[in-house]
């Protein structure tokens, strides 16, 4: 009962939690059915190749392979993000965070943009983590700054970008400074919003309002509850995003984009379209785009590396779990304008 009182007051109970109840009959049935389900999934997966199912047409098979590869590549990062989010929400004391953070909003956002340096998660993992930060009392605009900055200002991305481009043509510098600027500017723009809760999707806003300690019982129980909830929200979005990314790959010829590469303006627009469609993770997108560097202007490469990490088909599907569509449209337009501007500057300066 004591936990409920704390919930109503909106304060997190600082342990100890009430003693956990014994497992209910429903939980035992759930466990047995679930374990049977997992075992039969294994059995089906192991047996189907033996059946000699008729093979699919090439295009359908490739659509499957491409979509599944995005899911399999992203899921470990999503799990890592959820685990970090669990740690932030349930295992780090509040005072650590509040003590470490400066009070000035600009300084706070600047600090938040460097959180990625300690949490080198790819951008799919950042969404659950950002949700965790909001639930933990970070403002909505601060979570946006984190979402925009962390995929770029993180050690893995910096290393891979440096490996791919060195310091040539200012691409690395444009990416790091540009990422920091875009994240802080957009954070500042949204911090001016009079009702930040209205920026959140209705489902997530309700979650925030319901208070922090989701589920009953001790920390372990709350951690599992958080995992289950994040999976319920993110898995369908990940599947749909990957399916669309796969579909576009099969349907839109890539050479259409490549022919646009040599014009200062068109190359930038083409690179943004490419980044939007292919939905590669920021950790490795530098390697992906390296082969284009010979045909595309450096500014357009910088634009690709600024725009792609946060705005693409897969990420918009994931972000929709947290923000309203109107907010996503505004973020997309702002990031597109800013990254295109930085790309144009690089094109004309270098």
């Amino acid at each position, binding site marked *: 009962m004591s936990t409920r009182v704390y919930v109503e*007051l909106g304060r997190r109970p600082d342990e100890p939690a009430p003693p956990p109840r014994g497992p209910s009959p429903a939980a035992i049935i759930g466990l047995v059915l679930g374990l049977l389900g997992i075992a039969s999934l294994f059995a089906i997966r192991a047996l189907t190749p033996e059946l000699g*199912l008729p093979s699919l047409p090439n295009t359908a098979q490739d659509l*499957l392979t491409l979509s599944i590869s995005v899911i399999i590549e992203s*899921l470990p990062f999503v799990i890592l993000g959820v685990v970090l989010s669990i740690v932030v929400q349930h295992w780090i004391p509040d005072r650590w965070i509040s003590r470490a953070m400066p009070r000035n909003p600009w300084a706070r956002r600047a600090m938040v943009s460097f959180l990625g340096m300690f949490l080198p998660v790819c951008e799919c993992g950042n969404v659950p983590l950002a949700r965790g930060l909001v639930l933990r009392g970070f403002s909505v605009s601060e979570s946006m700054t984190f979402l925009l900055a962390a995929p770029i200002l993180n050690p893995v991305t910096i290393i891979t970008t440096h490996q791919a481009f060195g310091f040539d043509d200012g691409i690395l510098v444009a990416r790091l400074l540009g990422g920091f600027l875009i994240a802080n500017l957009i954070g500042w723009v949204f911090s001016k919003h009079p009702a930040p809760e209205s920026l959140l999707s209705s489902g997530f806003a309700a979650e*925030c309002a319901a208070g922090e300690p989701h589920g009953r019982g001790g920390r372990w129980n709350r951690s599992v509850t958080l995992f*289950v909830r994040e999976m319920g929200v993110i898995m369908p979005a990940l599947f749909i995003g990957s399916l669309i990314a796969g579909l576009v*790959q099969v349907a839109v010829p890539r050479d259409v984009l490549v022919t646009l590469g040599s014009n200062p303006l068109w190359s930038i627009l083409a690179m943004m379209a490419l980044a939007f469609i292919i939905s590669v993770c920021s950790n490795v997108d530098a390697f992906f785009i390296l082969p284009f560097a010979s045909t595309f202007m450096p500014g357009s490469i910088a634009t690709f590396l600024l725009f792609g990490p946060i705005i693409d088909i897969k990420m918009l599907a994931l972000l929709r779990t947290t923000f309203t569509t109107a907010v996503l449209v505004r973020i997309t337009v702002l990031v597109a304008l800013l990254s295109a501007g930085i790309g144009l500057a690089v094109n004309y300066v270098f």
Partner: protein
Amino acid sequence: MSSDEKHGAHAHAHHHEHGGTRGQRVWDAWRRWQGLALAAAVLVSTLWLAATGQLVLYIHPRYVVFTVAMALIGVVFVVAGLVAGRGATEGEQPRRLARAASLTGSVLAGALALALVIIPPATLTTATASQREINSTALGEVDESVTEAASVAGASASFTVLDWASLLRQTSDRAFYADKPAEVLGFITPDSDDPENSFYVSRFKVTCCAVDAQPVGVPVYLPDWQGEFSPDAWVEVTGTFDTNPSRGSAQPLALIPEEIVPVDQPEEPYLY
């Protein structure tokens, strides 16, 4: 902290954690089981693919250990989620239109999950190879080690299609290739400029996962090859590069085959 005010202001508006309407309970249960089921489908498939050495069909080998470790953590959480985690609510039940959209999404996601579990895993095919145009992007700067190795007698025997394709882009001087016999392995993609007499021995180069796969290949000249071989078949071709006799092909040089042997798809079909 601002969270206190925010939570305080809305706390009493949400009591559904302990009940709520029937529709709300059904909705919560649906979200919860859907998430767990989709996660279980991916996690089980990932672990099975890893156990049978087929995870490399989808992702770069450097991610395999990380992926398996995270999948194991995921399985532990999913099993724990079957017992605990009942308080999980997914906010308010959405309105009718949003519910219809979410139902459509569920059907699509479910179909993809089903395909993930029952369709045998496969590499990318010629459909993607021709869609992405062979050798259009993956050949960046020519690898210096390849150029050096090319000057060592006999080194060329171990070159992959990627090495050869990079060299061919660098030089089309036939004297350079005269004393360098090639032995390459790949799948057959028809040359769209001259599909009757010419095909590519091709592979995909993967930087991260299959979604960024770039096709690379070496042109092979063999009139009426379709009588003997079919697209997508894996072959090993031995021969030497020489002027391409094909009228239609855009490639100045082609591999003139001495022997073409059908082979099984290699365990690691992609190049890295």
